[in-house]
């Protein structure tokens, strides 16, 4: 989220598309009802199903799963055609004026530089024209046909309301009504917020769905303002935190990157991260990258990381592929190229696509270690549960160690919510039986491995034996010690750059925040964006002052949010070029003549003069990007791509299947189905009564939603002779499931390309352990394909078939 849950109350229009906030985030959704009640805000829902969110919406429009880009580009077209643009914002705060290279272009659904062999683009042409001064060339008049604005205008021209009706199945009048309501928010005094979640990410072009809405929000001037923003509703309580801390194959805490093979040494690695400003006088904050990187290396390896050894650069692995994401890992496992696997609080057997393949892959492991408070299907993947897990234990040679861990109620520490708030929590009970804290378990694993290397030696033990481990009790590092490590501290006295005679921070003291980090090895910091969370003022994440001056919804003294306790990202953009708020009733951050001030921590240097320094300080341009250059694999603008399994061909290029640059493993090509065999579009989702595969262990939630079911329209039910509450069989190219049929008016057939398209809704909460009835997850049916940029599996649009099923009820 660029903004926070509580900030949503400041909005005038909520657009829920690619999500179902009321269902998946009920208590956050409260702020939508609050905005409706006290601001008269309106709520629009665009979704294949009439959801719980839709039940309280002011306007609903249906859409075919996987066609959001068409809808979004058509919205942008509508805004441009009808002059629903916040011009001052677009001119000054976006790269609309930047001139793009002449060799950039788009045709037949593809951008310039496509290589069918590699299934990849040569992104060279997707860039600005750089002038002799080394800066990007711009045309503030936006007249130049090669400027981003004109290119965008041309790019979206094809996305007419008629195309929306044809591809999305959304009636043109419904689309136009939505466009009209959204258009009102181009006024500087009207704001719209976008609330989305996995309804947009779980597509082979998920990142582009989000780009689409982000561009629309920029055109309407809704980024950086109260009640606006791009609000990604994270699914798990601390998945924001785990991503911040970089628990991914290619990340280093704070969104730094693990080097690749093309970066054999520190210098090369740093060269590509110089982030020189593309316009005069811009901040380009990533210029501080070396400070954060060196501080990270010091916190990992302390004295072993020296300027001489490039800060232990080679202790870090170098990637040969963009990422070893879960799909790749399970592909490797399936090929027998993976021996040991850890699942820490994660139920992969039900969470990853193509369950058949996941089971096969796990069966080829030597050792599977699960660390969880609860029984999981994953830890029992080898156990036969009849139709619910039809495996032969004797044939599975994987050894499984099931380690019992504590749960939230028993441990202490911080979780990061969707609004980037780091909130500290305290235990209220002790772990049951022999269950242990996760920190204890990880410490034990490490210490035992380290001891083996110290005793026996072995391959490249350096990064292991040199890992900093200066905890009071080596066996059980405390949350306080770890939190302070992430905040960072001075390794030697830090002198004040302004006045070298003064010492800013004494050796051993916590740094105030990341502004004090150095690239000379004098500071250590585990996660620079968390720097400031536990400094010499104490544990700021444990603050509980819930006062909110002028009820802006900021709650600046409640816990702590990254970066620097900033509650709304890009908040400098809430004021115009001169630093005056666009909307006086929604002041956030403004220029008081000498410095930036306001209700939030300004997202700009306090004394950076308005008009000179752009508001998007993390970008080299100083402005936001309508045209994303080479930063995304599948295009600088979003272009319509059908799901890999789709009932209709891509209208721009019938030969193109799915996302032309998305990764498809050999073994999975044969496991893709077509609409002849599988005529119905399936989509998967959560229900509000359950949380993933956890609450099925809970008698209360099991009672509230006891049994696996699928949702279909009355028309499809009639067509297939399926009775309400009857049992059905749903199958795809990859597997089959049996479920109860929930026949509803909330799903209606869509007319796409002249043909009716039926949607089958498949909720995801059932498995074979727990208090609820035994069932299946949609992952028995979903394709093993991910988003081109971040490999998020395509769970939201795939093809299935359905028929009435005879026999016993499920479980």
């Amino acid at each position, binding site marked *: 989220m660029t903004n926070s849950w509580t900030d949503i109350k400041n909005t005038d229009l909520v657009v829920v598309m690619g999500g179902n906030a009321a269902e998946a985030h009920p208590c956050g959704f409260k702020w939508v009802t609050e905005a409706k*009640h006290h601001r008269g805000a309106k709520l629009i829902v665009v979704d294949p199903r009439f959801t719980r969110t839709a039940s*309280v919406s002011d306007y609903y429009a249906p859409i075919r799963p996987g066609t959001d880009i068409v809808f979004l580009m058509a919205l942008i077209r509508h805004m441009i055609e009808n002059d629903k643009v916040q011009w001052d914002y677009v001119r000054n705060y976006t790269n609309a004026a930047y001139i793009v290279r002449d060799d950039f272009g788009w045709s037949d659904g593809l951008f310039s530089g496509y290589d069918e062999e590699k299934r990849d683009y040569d992104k060279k042409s997707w860039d600005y024209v750089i002038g002799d001064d080394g800066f990007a060339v711009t045309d503030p008049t936006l007249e130049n046909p090669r400027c981003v604005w004109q290119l965008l205008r041309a790019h979206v021209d094809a996305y007419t309301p008629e195309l929306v009706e044809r591809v999305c199945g959304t009636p043109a009048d419904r689309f136009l009504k939505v466009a009209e309501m959204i258009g009102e928010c181009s006024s500087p005094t009207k704001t719209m917020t976008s609330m989305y979640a996995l309804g947009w990410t779980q597509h082979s072009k998920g990142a582009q769905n989000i780009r689409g809405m982000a561009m629309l929000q920029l055109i309407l001037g809704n980024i950086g303002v109260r009640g606006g923003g791009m609000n990604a509703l994270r699914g798990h309580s601390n998945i924001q935190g785990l991503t911040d801390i970089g628990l991914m194959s290619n990340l280093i805490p704070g969104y730094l990157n693990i080097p690749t093979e093309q970066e054999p040494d520190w210098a090369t690695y740093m060269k590509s991260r110089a982030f020189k400003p593309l316009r005069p006088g811009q901040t380009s904050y990533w210029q501080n990258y070396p400070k954060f990187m060196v501080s990270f290396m010091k916190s990992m390896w302390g004295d072993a990381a020296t300027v001489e050894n490039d800060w232990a650069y080679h202790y870090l692995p170098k990637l040969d592929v963009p990422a070893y994401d879960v799909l790749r890992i399970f592909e490797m496992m399936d090929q027998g190229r993976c021996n040991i696997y850890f699942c820490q609080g994660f139920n992969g057997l039900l969470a990853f696509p193509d369950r058949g393949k996941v089971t096969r892959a796990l069966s080829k492991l030597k050792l599977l270690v699960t660390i969880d408070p609860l029984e999981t299907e994953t830890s029992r993947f080898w156990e036969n549960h009849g139709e619910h897990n039809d495996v032969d234990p004797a044939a599975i040679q994987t050894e499984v160690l099931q380690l019992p861990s504590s749960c939230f109620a028993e441990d202490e520490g911080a979780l990061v919510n969707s609004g980037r708030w780091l909130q500290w929590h305290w235990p209220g009970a002790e772990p049951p039986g022999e269950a242990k804290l996760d920190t204890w378990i990880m410490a034990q694993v490490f210490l035992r491995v380290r001891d083996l290397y110290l005793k026996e030696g072995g391959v490249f033990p350096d990064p292991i034996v040199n890992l900093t481990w200066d905890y009071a009790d080596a066996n059980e590092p405390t949350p306080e010690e770890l939190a302070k490590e992430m905040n960072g501290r001075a390794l030697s006295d830090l002198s004040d750059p302004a006045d070298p005679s003064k010492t800013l921070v004494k050796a051993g003291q916590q740094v105030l925040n990341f502004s004090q980090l150095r690239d000379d090895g004098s500071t250590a910091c585990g996660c620079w964006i968390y720097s400031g969370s536990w400094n010499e003022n104490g544990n700021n994440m444990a603050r509980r002052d819930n006062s909110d001056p002028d009820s802006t919804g900021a709650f600046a003294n409640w816990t702590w949010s990254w970066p620097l306790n900033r509650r709304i990202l890009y908040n400098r953009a809430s004021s115009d070029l001169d630093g005056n708020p666009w909307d006086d009733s929604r002041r956030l951050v403004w220029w008081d003549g000498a410095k930036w001030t306001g209700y939030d921590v300004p997202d700009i240097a306090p004394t950076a003069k308005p008009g000179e320094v752009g508001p998007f300080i993390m970008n080299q341009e100083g402005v936001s990007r309508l045209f994303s250059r080479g930063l995304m694999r599948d295009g600088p603008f979003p272009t319509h791509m059908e799901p890999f399994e789709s009932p209709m061909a891509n209208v721009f290029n019938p030969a193109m299947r799915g996302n032309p640059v998305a990764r498809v493993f050999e073994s999975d090509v044969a496991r893709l189905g077509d609409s002849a065999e599988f005529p119905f579009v399936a989509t998967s989702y959560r229900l509000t009564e359950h949380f993933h595969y956890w609450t099925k262990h809970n008698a209360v939630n099991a009672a509230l939603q006891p049994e696996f079911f699928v949702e279909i329209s009355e028309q499809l039910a009639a067509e297939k002779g399926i009775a309400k509450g009857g049992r059905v069989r749903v199958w795809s190219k990859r597997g089959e499931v049996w479920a109860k049929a929930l026949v509803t008016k*909330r799903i209606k057939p869509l007319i796409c390309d002249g043909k009716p398209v039926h949607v089958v809704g498949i909720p995801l909460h059932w498995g074979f352990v727990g208090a609820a009835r035994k069932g299946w997850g949609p992952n028995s049916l979903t394709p093993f394909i991910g988003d081109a940029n971040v490999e998020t599996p395509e769970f939201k649009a795939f093809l299935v078939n359905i028929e009435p099923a005879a026999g016993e009820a499920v479980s």
Partner: protein
Amino acid sequence: MTIAPNVDSPRTATANPPVQPAQGNLGQAAVVRSSAGGPVAENPTALTPVAKLIDVSKCIGCKACQSACVEWNDTHPGVEENVGVYENPHDLTPDMFTLMRFAEYDNPETGDFEWLIRKDGCMHCADPGCLTACPAPGAIVQYSNGIVDFIHENCIGCGYCVSGCPFDIPRISQVDHRSYKCTLCSDRVAVGQGPACAKACPTHAITFGTKDDMTALAAERVEDLKSRGYDNAGLYDPQGVGGTHVMYVLHHADKPGIYNDLPEDPQIAGVVENWKGPTKTVGLAAIGLAALGSVAMGLFSRVAVEPEDERHAEDLVDRAAAIPGGEGSGEGKDA
């Protein structure tokens, strides 16, 4: 925080529950009505009437109210099956005091589809049919703040309350044979907390406070709904049962029936009134009079058998015996 017994009803609860011993304000001293002539307070503590307002237009049907209700009241609804609907459990039970009911409605006026979700449960009527019907003294009481509560020790499990309720709410446990329903969390309200469901409700579709505050809030909501084109939006506070302490804001107040058969004009059924009224009085009177009457008549008159009747009888018997084979037939002597 300790609540003195004389403290007034809570406004919508904003504070967290007390953990220190707290003295409640609901008990015999606040009882204004009690079933079957059960004990009521001489001059009951005058508590401000409370109400729970359920704003259907804010409700997302998430069942948090059900969950919170189960957790607070320590009930244990069973794991049923899915029968093709969202309602689970399928109906109110002795272990499920409140239930989200879902209705799929194609609005003929607008042509739009609407998903109408209503939280069902005890309405806490000012004139409670259950209390009227109940034969067990003190099994159902009404407190001065409007809460209608079951005193289970006094319940005999006859099920009359089920027949008496215009909203079909109470359920009899097959385990302990006592009647159960929403208590409006009387134990929480007594110490200044709102009901568990109201506190949990994510969208504040359920709010709790004094009836006046809730009525005012409802008016505000109705205005907002009208501004969004729901011309018939309104408050549901049925006067047929003297008004209720659980009220609804409905977008279609003109058609309560479309919200899963919410009664148009609920009132205690005529037959129940008759049965508990005239039938009882007249019946008992008649029995009393009949008894007295017969005793009286018994005193003043009788039909007795006269001695000559006996002689007539003997003659009759003898004569019959005397016909053929008369003399010497000794049957009489044998007798």
